[in-house]
C-alpha cells in the first residue's frame, strides 16, 4: 500500500522531525503502561471470576492499602515529569528557533477558502501553491511563515513539514519549515472556517535552489499579456469589464481586486480553487461557469457568462503564465 502523503510519521522538515522523535517516546511509554495495566485487568477478570460451584461466601473485604496508593501515585508522577520535560524541550526548540539571515519570509493570509502568499522581499504575490527552497541540514535555509487571516480562523497543516499553526484574525502567528527533501507536500486547512473548509487544500513545492530561483523569476514578471490572437483579447476585455476585476489581481492590468486569489501567474499552478480541481482547460471553464459544481459554497459566484464568454475568459487566463 502506498504511503499516505500526509502521514505524520514521515517527517521531512525539522519541526516535524522534532515532533516525530517526541511522539515515539510518548507512544512507547503509553504502550508500556497499556500493556501492564491491560494485563492486570485481564488477569483480574479471569482469575477472580466467580465459579459455578461457589460457596456463596463473600470474599475477604479489603478496604485499602496506603503503600499501594503511594506506589501508584508516585510512579505516575515520575512518568508525568519525564514526559513534561521532554515536551517542554521540544516546545522551546520549535517555538523559539534560530533565524539565519538568509531565511526566506512568506506572509500567509488565510481566506475563506483559499491561501494567499506574499514574499515581501521578493515582491511576489501568489495563491494556494507555496514554493520554498530545499534546505540542506548542514547549512539550513528555512522558510519562515507569518500567519494572518482576512476573515475567520484557519489552520496551516502540512503534516510532513510541521505541526499545524492557526491563522487567526488580529492575532498574527509564526511558524517555520526547513524541508530537506524535494517534492510536493500536501495538507489542508485544519480549523473549521465555514462551508468549504474541507476543500481549502495546501500544496507545498520544495524545490532545489536553482529551480526555486527560476520559479521566483517567473513569478516576478508582470502578466504576459494577451497574445494578439482574437480569442484571448476578447477574453481580456470580458474579464476587465465584468466583476472579475472586483476580486482578482492581474498585475500590470486594471484588474486589482483583493478578495480572491491573484491570477497573474495562474498557469504556473497545478490546481485551481485551492486544490479542489486540477488546472486543466476543462476544469477552468467549469469553474468560471459554475463554481458550485466544483466547490459548492465557495465565495466565487457564478458570473452568468455565456458559453462563448466563458471560453474567451478561459483562453485569456491560459495566457497568464
Amino acid at each position, binding site marked *: 500500500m502506498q504511503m499516505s502523503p500526509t502521514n505524520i510519521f514521515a517527517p521531512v522538515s525539522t519541526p516535524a522531525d522534532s515532533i516525530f522523535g*517526541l511522539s515515539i517516546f510518548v507512544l512507547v511509554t*503509553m504502550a508500556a503502561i497499556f500493556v501492564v*495495566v491491560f494485563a492486570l485487568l485481564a488477569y483480574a477478570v479471569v482469575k477472580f471470576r466467580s465459579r459455578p460451584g461457589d460457596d456463596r461466601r463473600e470474599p475477604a473485604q479489603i*478496604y*485499602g492499602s496506603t503503600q499501594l496508593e503511594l506506589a501508584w501515585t508516585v510512579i505516575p508522577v515520575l512518568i508525568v515529569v519525564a514526559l513534561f520535560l521532554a515536551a517542554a524541550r521540544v516546545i522551546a526548540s520549535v517555538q523559539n528557533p534560530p533565524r539565519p539571515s538568509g531565511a526566506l519570509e512568506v506572509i500567509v493570509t488565510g481566506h475563506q477558502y483559499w491561501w494567499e502568499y506574499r514574499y515581501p522581499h521578493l515582491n511576489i504575490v501568489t495563491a494556494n501553491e507555496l514554493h520554498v527552497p530545499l534546505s540542506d541540514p548542514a547549512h539550513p535555509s528555512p522558510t519562515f511563515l507569518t500567519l494572518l487571516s482576512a476573515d475567520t480562523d484557519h489552520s496551516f497543516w502540512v503534516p510532513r513539514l510541521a505541526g499545524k499553526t492557526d491563522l487567526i484574525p*488580529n492575532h498574527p502567528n509564526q511558524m517555520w519549515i526547513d524541508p530537506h527533501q524535494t517534492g510536493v507536500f500536501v495538507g489542508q486547512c485544519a480549523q473549521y472556517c465555514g462551508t468549504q473548509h474541507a*476543500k481549502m487544500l495546501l500544496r507545498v513545492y520544495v524545490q532545489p535552489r536553482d529551480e526555486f530561483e527560476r520559479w521566483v523569476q517567473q513569478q516576478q514578471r508582470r502578466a504576459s499579456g494577451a497574445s494578439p490572437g482574437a480569442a484571448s483579447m476578447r477574453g481580456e476585455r470580458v474579464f476587465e469589464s465584468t466583476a472579475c476585476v472586483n476580486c482578482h489581481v492581474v498585475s500590470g492590468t486594471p484588474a486589482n481586486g483583493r478578495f480572491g486569489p491573484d491570477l497573474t501567474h495562474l498557469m504556473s499552478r497545478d490546481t485551481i480553487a485551492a486544490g479542489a480541481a486540477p488546472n486543466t482547460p476543462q476544469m477552468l471553464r467549469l469553474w468560471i461557469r459554475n463554481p458550485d459544481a466544483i466547490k459548492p459554497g465557495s465565495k466565487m459566484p457564478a458570473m452568468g457568462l455565456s458559453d462563448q464568454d466563458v471560453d474567451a475568459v478561459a483562453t485569456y487566463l491560459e495566457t497568464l503564465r
Partner: protein
Amino acid sequence: MATTTIAISGYPAAPRPFTLRLHDWVTTVDHKRLGILYILYSLIFLVLGGIEAAIMRWQLIRPHNNLVSPEVFNRMFTMHGTTMIFFVAMPMLFGFANYLVPLMIGARDMAFPRLNAFSFWMSALGGMLLYFSFLGGDGLYGAGSAPDVGWFAYAPLTAKTFSVGHSTDFWILSLLVSGIGSVGTAINIIATILCMRCPGMTLGKMPLLVWLNLTMAVLVILAVSPLTAAQIMLLVDRYVGGHFFDTQAGGSAVIWMHFFWIFGHPEVYVLVLPAFAFASEIIPVFSRKAIFGYSVMVLATVAIAFISMSVWAHHMFTVGMGAGANIFFVLSTMAIAVPTGIKIFNWLATMWGGKIHFATPMLFCIAFLFQFLVAGLTGVTLAVAPFDWQLGNSYYVVAHFHYVIVGGILFTAFAAFYYWFPKISGRMYNEALGKLHFWLFLIGFHLTFDFMHIPGLLGMPRRIYTYEPGRGWDIWNLIVTIGVAFQAAGVLVFAANLVLSYFRGRAAGNDPWDAWTLEWSTSSPPPEYNYAVVPSVRSRRPLWDLKHPEDPDWRYE
C-alpha cells in the same frame, strides 16, 4: 436501624385516566419522576444525535461522496456535538443523580423540589429550541437553519458577518436556557447532599456516587457560568453591535476560545464524574468486595475537579500562545492524569481477590475500565503539546474524546441503566438481551473508534464533509462507518429490552443484586415518600452491616 417500608401501596388501586396521569407527570416535583423524565428525554435526543452521526459517517464512507451538501454536513456535526453533550449526556446524568442521590442518603426528596421541576423544564425547553432551528427562519429548505458553526462556535465565524440568519442564535439561546436548568439542578444537588443526609451519614460515610455528584455539581456552578457569560457577550456582538469578538474593531477571537474552554474542559469532567460514580457503585457489588481506597477515591475526585479548572488551554495549543503558556498547560493537563489513573487502579484493586459476577451491568463496567484506560492514555499523548500540533483538530482527537464519552461515559451509563432498572421499574430486564446489546455495541464501538485514530495519524482533519482520495484515509473511513451499524443495532436491542421488560419482566424485589446501599432497602419501585422511617446508618454500607451482623463495616472504617 429500620429501613423497611410500611406495607402500603404507593399507588391507588384503580387506574386513573390517562389525562390525569399525564398531568401528574407534567406537574410532578418528585425527584424520582423528574429523574425518569430527564432520562427519557435524553434517550430521545440520543436517537436524534445518533441519526446525525450516521448521516455524517455515511457521507464519509468514501471520498467525494455526495449524500449531503457541505451546508447540511456542517449542520450535522454542529448539532450532533451540541445535542450529545447538552441534551443527552447532561440530562441523562442529571436524571440518574436526581433519582439516586436522595435515595442513597436516606432523604425523601431533593432540597428544592420545585426548583428541580423548573430546572428540568428549562433543560427540556433548551433542547426543543435547538431543534426548532431546523424549522425556524429558513424553514425546511436545505435542512432548515440549524446552527453550523461547530459545537464550540469559534469567533469570528459566529459574527453576524459570517453567520447570517438566525442559526447561531438558536445555538446561543438554547444553551443559555438549558444552562439555567443545569445550574438550578447543581444548586439542588449540593443543598440536598449537604443538608439532608440521614442520621449517622457523615460526609465520610456517603456512597461514592453521592461524593462524585456533589463534586460534579460544584463544577457545574463554576464552569457553566463562563459559557453563559460568553454567550451573553456573543449576543451583544450579534444584536447590539458589540465588539467582544469583533477582530476588525480590535476584539479578540482568542478570548472566545479561552472563555469557551474555561467552560468546555470542566464540562467534560462534569460528564465523566457521574460515570465514575456508576462504576464505583457497580464494580464493588459485582465483585462482592467493598470499594478499595474510599478516602483516596474521594481525594482523587476533588483533585480532578480542582485541576480541571486549570487545563483548558490544552484545546488551544495550536493557537499561538507563547511557549511559556503552552508549557504550563502541558504540565497541568498531565497532572490530571495522576488522580485519574489512581481511580483505575482502585477499581482494579476492588476486583482483585473478589468473586466477579458477569451480569450485564458488570460487563459494561469491565469494558469501561479497558476503554477508559486507552482514552486516558491517548489523552496523555494529546497533552504533549508538540504532538498535539500534529494531532489537534484531527480525527485522532475525535477518536480520543469519543473513546471517553462513548467508551467511558455511555458504557457506564448503560451499566447504570441495567443496574438500577429493577429498582426504578420493579422488574428485571432480560439478561440475554442485555448481553446481546453489550456484545453488539462493544464490537461496533471498537470498529468505529479504534480505527478512527488512524486517519488522524495520517493527517485527516475534522469537520470536513469530504476528503481527497489518495491520502490513505479511504479504507479507515469505511471501517469506521461500518461500526455504526453495530452500535445502532445494540441501541435498538437496548430500547427493546427496556420496553419489553417494563411490561413483562419478572418482579425484581427490593434487592435483586444483594447490594449494600440504602436504595436497595426500600421497595422496587420506591414509594413516593422513599422511606417510611428515615434510616440511620453507621457505615458506608448499611445493608452489608444488616446482612453481616458478625462482621459489620463500621468495625473497620
